[in-house]
């Protein structure tokens, strides 16, 4: 019969031993879709740079090139219960790739804006 008080005691101790955290991290500023949609194909690279600023990466593609603009958002949450540690990490990005031809004129633009979709959650959610 003494097992029931012991069980409650263990439960109480496990709650005392618990902890949690939530953290958020961001790299660069969010991208604005309108600024990329305003770019017309054929725009010189220098005008693109003037409009958007410096890219985070420039990739040489033979005689051509591509610029990457990127914003990353991440949210982490954790719950520590006695023996069990639960952690969740969610990362999403705003990303835009701009492709240029041999004459450094814009040929293609690809955008993905997902950084707003990061959320705090736990593994079972």
């Amino acid at each position, binding site marked *: 019969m003494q097992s029931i008080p012991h069980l409650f005691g263990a439960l109480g101790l496990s709650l005392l031993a618990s902890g949690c955290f939530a953290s958020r991290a961001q790299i660069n500023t969010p991208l604005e879709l309108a600024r990329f949609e305003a770019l017309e194909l054929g725009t010189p690279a220098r005008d693109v740079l003037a409009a958007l600023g410096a890219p985070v990466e420039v990739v040489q593609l033979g005689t051509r090139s591509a610029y990457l603009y990127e914003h990353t958002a991440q949210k982490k949450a954790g719950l520590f219960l006695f023996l069990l540690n639960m952690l969740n990490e969610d990362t999403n990005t705003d990303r835009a790739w701009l492709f240029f031809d041999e004459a450094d004129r814009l040929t*293609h633009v690809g955008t993905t804006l997902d950084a707003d979709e990061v959320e705090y959650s736990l593994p079972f959610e």
Partner: protein
Amino acid sequence: MKPRLGLLALLAVTTSCVQLRWARVESATPITQERYAGLAPGHANLGDALEALGAPTLVRELPADGIACAWAWQRGRTLGVTVSLPVTDVSVSLDYDDVSDALDSVVMFFDGDRELTVIERGKLSSLLARRPPSALILPTAARADPDVSRPGGE
């Protein structure tokens, strides 16, 4: 009184020795096959791919002016246990994880005219490791590989 002290001691010891970890790591939105079902090698180009899938995760240069674009995402779950046993002056630790969290991806290859030549789907690390850049733009070699997938073909 003794049982309570014993329980307390047991909790203290157990908490420090054994840890269960349940973790989930997610990044980016998975690319479903439906999203690129309309992109057929030989008929679609880079503009079509960017319109259908958005900005790729990475872009790589290939020989003969070709390029590879990869759209990658991660849906990793880890269930693991860590056991630490202090043994006099030596600390022994065992760790076991049973789930890989490698990046899944869709990789598309384009020729010098930015026409789509091959679509592959799988773990990004293995796709990039299995084929050196010089082999990536050989459609005939890629199409002979059973791992190569095409829209509607998986």
